[in-house]
């Protein structure tokens, strides 16, 4: 019996592949699929009272979501904040990666390590340090006050959308650096020389050759930043205040103090769907853009 299994195993590549994957598959089923299924099923229930849930399946929670203008506006705000964070990160990380990939000759690794050095501390600590920098009596305000540039502390710095955007941008920048750097580093310099040879100026070469060839890295960076920041709730909770609140903070509240688990689950599902849709649109349009550019 054992021998038969062994023969089957050694002959089948699929069996080998699955057995190598099995620990990961097991983990994914345990921590992803099951919670996901639970979330989906909870979103179809009804919270009757504090302790009581009606398990009759219904779509009413999704209708509830879109009837509550607060939730819809929070969803839009979450997407907007993420979008701005992604854009700023790309605009700042791309030139840096371009510089390292094409102009740094020696010790490229050292540059990358130094750039990612701040990210060796915990995410939470970094968020707190922004609180210290941006606060009413923070580094920023006391410097400006001390220098006599302002007479009162700038209050919009803290507990605002801007504060959330600044903190999230800084917190996720490192994750954009790596895919961008890898895709730029991979570009053979002879493509750039060939384009110059064919009569294009440096500026045109960037838009016709370098940028299209680095698009895989750009897409990677967009997704890596956009997906986690849409759902981030630590930063808005700590330094967003009421102004900088995002949908994820509301979802947390539904599962916690508001105690409406079905509506929370429905909100989370809607958010997940939104992220998936946006991801699909980004991938599709960038692919289109590549063809358009060339």
């Amino acid at each position, binding site marked *: 019996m054992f021998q038969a299994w062994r023969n089957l195993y050694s002959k089948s590549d699929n069996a080998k592949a699955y057995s190598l994957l099995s620990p990961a598959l097991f983990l994914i089923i345990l921590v992803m699929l099951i919670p996901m299924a639970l979330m989906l099923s909870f979103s179809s229930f009804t919270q009757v009272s504090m302790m009581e849930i009606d398990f009759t399946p219904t779509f009413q929670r999704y209708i509830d979501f879109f009837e509550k203008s607060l939730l819809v506006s929070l969803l839009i705000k979450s997407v907007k904040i993420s979008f701005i964070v992604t854009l700023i990160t790309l605009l700042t990380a791309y030139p840096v990666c371009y510089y390292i990939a094409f102009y740094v000759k020696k010790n490229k690794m050292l540059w990358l390590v130094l750039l990612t050095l701040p990210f060796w501390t915990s995410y939470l600590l970094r968020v707190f340090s922004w609180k210290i920098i941006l606060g009413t009596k923070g580094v920023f305000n006391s410097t400006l006050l001390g220098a006599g540039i302002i007479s009162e502390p700038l209050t919009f710095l803290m507990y605002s959308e801007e504060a959330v955007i600044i903190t999230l941008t800084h917190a996720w920048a490192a994750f954009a650096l790596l895919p961008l750097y890898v895709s730029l580093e991979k570009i*053979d310099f*002879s*493509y750039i*020389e*060939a*384009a*110059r*040879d*064919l*009569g*294009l*100026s440096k500026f045109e070469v960037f838009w*016709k*050759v370098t940028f*299209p*060839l680095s698009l895989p890295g750009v897409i990677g960076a967009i997704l890596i930043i956009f997906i986690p920041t849409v759902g981030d709730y630590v930063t808005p909770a700590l330094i967003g205040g009421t102004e900088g609140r995002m949908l994820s903070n509301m979802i947390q509240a539904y599962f916690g103090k508001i105690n409406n688990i079905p509506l929370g689950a429905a909100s989370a599902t809607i958010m997940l769907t939104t992220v998936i849709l946006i991801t699909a649109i980004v991938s599709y349009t960038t692919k289109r853009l*590549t063809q358009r550019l*060339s």
Partner: protein
Amino acid sequence: MNENFIQINGISKHFGNVKAVDDVSFSIKEGEFFSLLGPSGCGKTTLLRLLAGFEYPTNGNLLIDGSDITALPPDKRPTNMVFQNYAIFPHINVEQNIKFGLRKLGLTDDEIKKRVDDVLALVKLEGYEERFSGQLSGGQRQRVALARALVRQPKVLLLDEPLGALDKKLRDEMQLELRTLQKEIGITFVFVTHDQQEAISMSDRVAVMSEGKIQQLSAPNELYKNPENIFVSDFIGETNFLKASTKSKDGDQINVAIEDLGDFKVKNNLNIPENSSDVVCSVRPESMMISRDKSDWDICLEAKINQTSYLGEMTRFYVEVSGINKVITVSSQHFDNQSFENNTCFISISLEDISLLQKK
């Protein structure tokens, strides 16, 4: 025809302490197939890149068709390049690659279409317009690179070892094709290669480079028959070097004592001075004769065959001449290793075939 179509005047290019190109001056004729030949690191690619505008010279200036291009960026030069790795843009197809360099020339759509169609026919790539670089073979990629450069109708086409990545058979075909193409369109070609056979078979003239300098610039047959120094003699084809010293001159000729062989009178094309011990005699393997019996040639030596290698069209013999502790290479089309008893043979040399060269 312009004799000084491309003028290279005292060009040097230094990278730190390395003199990649060291005070080089020469001219290339209009419509010429010109090759830069040399071992890797000799400066030939740097010189080509200086012509293309990817590097700027430390000293000297460059002129094409009478105008100074020394300070012009690559996009403003009347040159186009075929890259060693072809550099076909991977994100666009063959047709878009070929059109890539046309957008800045201010042509109408009809003119663009005509040029693309013509060049595709020229390099025999009709029907491949929609393909991407990844879907092409090495030879096809090479043709696309050629078409992309030629479609701009440059005054000078620069080719950086374009055949290096192809297999032998395809390389031989492409050599012939490139040569025919160049004669057909009449554009000046500057071709960089480390393959001496390639340079010799394709070019009108060849510049042999070593250590950033031109060692010899002449027609291929001159290069082979009358090398001007030991480097060229050794680099082009195969040869045997025999130690020698010069004695008295006799008109165009000079008396030399070849070590272990005796005194002879040979031609002195390079005007080597009398009584110099820093000279060598170079004899090509195929200019010698190998035979079973003694011959009446100027020099005839009894020898023993050490080693043979069969090359198809000829056999190469490595023979040890009796009394001299030196292995000489001889090639023959008529004999093979079964032709000789006891490995004994005679090798004959005509004094005509001896080139006298000076050591550095």
